[in-house]
Each structure stands twice: as C-alpha cells, then as structure tokens.
C-alpha cells in the first residue's frame, strides 16, 4: 500500500522474492542455482566440463523458451525444432551469403520464427490436446523436409558450414569463455522473461486460457490472441537459441537440427524440471543435459546403447515420482522442512 503512494518504490516492489520457487517471484533457491551457474562458468577451465556447461546453459534457455508456449499457455509443441532450425539457418544463410553478422541475423531469424509460430497457432486454432500436438509435429517435419530439399538455400543433407575463423563480428571465437558467457546470458535473459511474464496481466491471461478456455472468454480474454502471442514469443526466443547453437557448433544439417528429437528434448527438460514454472526448465536442463553427456561419455564404450537405457530409466523415475517436476518437489520439501515459513506448495505443473 505504501508503494502505491511513492512511485519511486514501485520499481523495487515489482519484483517479489520468496524462499522456495513460487510463481511470479524470484526465490532464494533459484538465485543460488543461477549464481552457482555463473560462478562455475568463471571458475571451471576443463575443456570437456566447459563444453557440457555451454550445452547445459543453451538447453536451459531453449527449454525456458519452449515453456512459454508449452508450460504457460498449455500449447504442448513437438514442432519447436522447426523454430530452432529457422533461427539457426536464417542467421547462418545471412552470414554465409550476405555477410550479415549473426548478432543481427539472429533477430531476423527470431522475426521469421515468431511469424511462423503465430501462423501455426492461427491455422491450428481449433485443435486441442493431442490433435494440436500432432499438428505441431507435422509442421516440424514439413520444415525439415523443406530444408532437406531446398539445396540451393540450405545445402540440403550436406549441410552448411561456418568457417572457424575467430571474429567477434561473426560470433566465432577461439576460446570457450565467450561462448559460456553468451549461453549464460541467454539463459538468464530467458529466466528473467519467464518471471516477468508470470507476474504480468498477460501471464495471468495465459494461465487462464490454458486452464479453461470458456472461462477465460467469459471474463473478456481473447483466447486465440493470447495463445498466438505466446507461441510467437516462444518461437522467436527458440530461434535465438538456434543461432547460438549454429555459432557454437559451426555446422548445420536438417537431420540433426530440425529433428523431432530436439523438440522432444525441449518438452522432456520442462517435464522433468517442472512444467509451467520459471525454475523448472533450468533445473531440468541442469539434470538432463550433463546426465546424458556423462552417460554417453562413460558408458557408450562398453555396451552400445546402455547409456540411453539408463538415461530413459532415470527420466521415467523422475516423471513417475515427481509429477510436478524437480521444481515442485523442492517447493514441497521446503514447506515440509519449514512449515511456518509460508511456502507456496501448489502443484503448478502437470504430467505431459
């Protein structure tokens, strides 16, 4: 109430803090996790470890982008690899053919992917649940096949290669630290965007549309606009991740970049971490990405495919026993340990 009378205080009041992860607030646990990510990015120097960190932070940012549509708006998409691919290919084609720096190219990719996402949602406006999911899967495949066959533009199955000549303008670096910095920045920006959405009017419109469309319409929310905007933002931010991916790996081909596996991975990270929360995708990526990399590194030599079996079992256990993800489990544990601290323990996430 005091903040209402003192305009200067409103900026501070706008961000609320809590102990355990809670919607629309930044929790101590989240700050601790994100801060240790930054510290790790500065301190760790082992090449292999830094490589895993780069992938983890990139995937955390991408999962946060997916979560805007899949978690907040309830638009479970298995076609996000298409937006990822659009981002990666747009900036790379602009760089290779026209010399446009990826710093600008990624904005072009985001714009195109955002429009594609909006179009997809408008076209599939009447589809719900599994039917919407299948249509996104099909849309993703259309983009993959188009990229495979449009050889003059995408290089087809041979792919595109970015020359490994270090240049800040071209976003190509010799050492790993600029990449770690960029990926951490991407993850933090996506986290901030998610928390911001959660506490705005628009964020609540998303939750309402997700939970009950008729109920949302009855209080004056246009469900179609709300959903379309969510998908556009999610697609655009996914495309930015696509550009970052291209600039780190310096090679693109449709089979790997626009594959449904990539889309499933986005959804899986969110499901494990906690769907529809800002912290969930971060926790999910911190568990899933290093786990899959380590298992592949340790076990792929002994029995081929064993690492995938173990990885699958771990994922099934998490989804079975933590339906609201790691984020929800942390909230519940905190409320059990400190019952008087007023933690919010609402189950915000659902099973996929």
């Amino acid at each position, binding site marked *: 109430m005091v903040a209402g009378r003192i305009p200067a205080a409103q900026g501070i009041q706008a961000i609320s803090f809590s102990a355990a992860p809670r919607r629309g607030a930044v929790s101590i646990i989240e700050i601790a996790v994100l801060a240790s990510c930054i510290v790790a990015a500065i301190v760790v120097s082992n090449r292999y470890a830094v490589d895993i960190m780069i992938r983890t932070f990139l995937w955390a940012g991408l999962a946060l982008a997916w979560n805007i549509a899949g978690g907040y708006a309830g638009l479970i998409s298995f076609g996000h690899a298409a937006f990822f691919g659009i981002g990666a290919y747009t900036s790379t084609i602009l760089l290779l053919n026209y010399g446009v720096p990826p710093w600008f190219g990624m904005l072009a990719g985001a714009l195109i992917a955002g429009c594609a996402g909006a179009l997809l949602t408008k076209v599939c406006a009447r589809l719900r649940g599994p039917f919407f999911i299948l249509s996104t899967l099909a849309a993703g495949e259309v983009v993959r096949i188009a990229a495979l066959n449009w050889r003059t533009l995408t290089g087809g199955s041979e792919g595109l290669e970015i020359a490994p000549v270090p240049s800040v303008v071209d976003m190509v670096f010799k050492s790993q630290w600029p990449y770690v910095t960029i990926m951490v920045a991407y993850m933090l920006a996506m986290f901030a965007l998610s928390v911001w959405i959660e506490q705005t009017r628009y964020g609540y419109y998303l*939750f309402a549309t997700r939970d009950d469309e008729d109920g949302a319409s009855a209080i004056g929310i246009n469900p179609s606009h709300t959903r379309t905007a969510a998908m556009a933002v999610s697609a655009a931010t996914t495309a930015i991740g696509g550009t970052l991916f291209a600039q780190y790996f310096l090679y693109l081909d449709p089979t790997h970049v626009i594959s449904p596996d990539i889309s499933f991975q986005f959804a899986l990270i969110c499901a494990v971490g906690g769907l529809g929360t800002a912290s969930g995708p971060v926790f999910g990526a911190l568990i899933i990405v290093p786990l899959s990399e380590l298992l592949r590194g340790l076990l792929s030599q002994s029995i081929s495919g064993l690492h995938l079996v173990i990885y699958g079992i771990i994922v099934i256990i998490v989804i079975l026993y933590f339906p609201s993800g790691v984020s929800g489990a942390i909230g519940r544990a905190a409320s059990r340990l400190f019952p008087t601290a007023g933690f919010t323990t609402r189950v915000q996430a659902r099973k996929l």
Partner: protein
Amino acid sequence: MLKLDAVGRQFGSLWATRDVSFTVKPREIVGIIGPNGAGKSTLFNLVSGAVVPTTGVIRFLDQTIDYGKPYQVARRGLARTFQIPKPFKQLTVRENVMLSALRRHHTPRQASAVATTTMEFIGIGELAEASVASLTVGQLKKLELARALATEPVLLLLDEVMAGLTPPEIREMMTVIGSLPKRGVTVVWVEHVMMAIMNVAERIVVMHQGQIIAQGTPAEVSKNPAVIGAYLGEKYAYAAR
C-alpha cells in the same frame, strides 16, 4: 438493457430454443425456469455470445452482440457463471477472482484488491489462498459468482448457482443475489431451486421445449396451469397458495 427478438438456435434438426423474445430492464432480477432440456442453458450461451443464433437478434445495451465472440460481449459488461463451474484449476481462489478484475484494473496488485473485496462480499474471503482443487461444490459455486462479479458487470447471467448448496448456503446466496440491483447489476437467473428464485426474482420467464410458455411475477406463473403442467406440478401450485 437486454432485448431478445425471435431468437432461435437449431442443432441438426432440433431447435434448442425457438422464437424466444423478451426484454430485461436495468436493475431487474429476471428468473428463467423450466424442465431440463427446455433450452435455458442454450439461451445463456446465445446471450453471452458463445453460440451463434440461427434466427433472431440479441441486443445488449442497445447494440447487437458480437455473435460467436464471448470475450467481446464480456468486455461490454456481461458476466456469466457456468452450470458446471469452470475455474482455472492451477491457480488459487484469489488468482481466479483477480483474473476477472484484470481487464479493468491493469496490474495484478490493483486487481487483487478488487478480488479481496469481492471475495469478502460473497463470503469466501478466508479461502483466498486455497487451491481450487481443494474446494467443495458449494465453494466452487460461490467462486463462480465471485469471478463473474469481479468483472464489474452491468448484466449478470447466473446458471443454476444454487445447485449443490446446503440450505444455509442457499439463504446466504439469496441475500447476495437480492442485493445486486442496488449495486447496479441486472440479473438474469436460471434456477431449479424454486424456493430461492421465486422469492428473489421480480419476474419469471418459463421455458418448455425451447419456447417461452409463460411470463409474469412469481405469483402469476405459479398459478398458471400451463406452467404447473409442464414443470412445477400440482404440489407446488398448492404450496404457492
């Protein structure tokens, strides 16, 4: 306030409502009664813009409503409750009510203040931080009403808000609904609990097989032979005397 002119809606070969005409004046409480399948809920879906009429015209505040766009109708000041409550399941009671206030009060903080007042008025103030999943049927019905009122409507459509409530809850709800015209809210109310609607509504519209068979004060319709035959039954007619 609200004017229906020969409104009808056909589903396949069945007319769910047919040739329905009536007018609602500002600050009036109009009750709609009739047996199940009489077309009452379809009528609400038509007026709220969720269903497009096959024939006829619906005018709200002297303007034809945007058929098929319930959110446009809602923005012009029409709120409704649903027969089967449609809460936002992953949110708290407060957030559910606050969402309704967000269109007029742009920040969640301001909308939350409106939500608090509305929840107190309906009598669910102490449930504010509860999860919707933990509510009883009666509490869900109250939440439904609170959500509709938090949009600050001029016209409120109530769809069987008394169903599933205990007698004390019904009496509480009757007081709340009865006080709405004083707050500038016009009410159109579908109900099966006759004790409630006959005591609170000023005018009753009786529907049967998609059409209006009688209109008048509660006393008038309860003596109408056509209404007794189609819906109320002999027993009610005696009780009403």
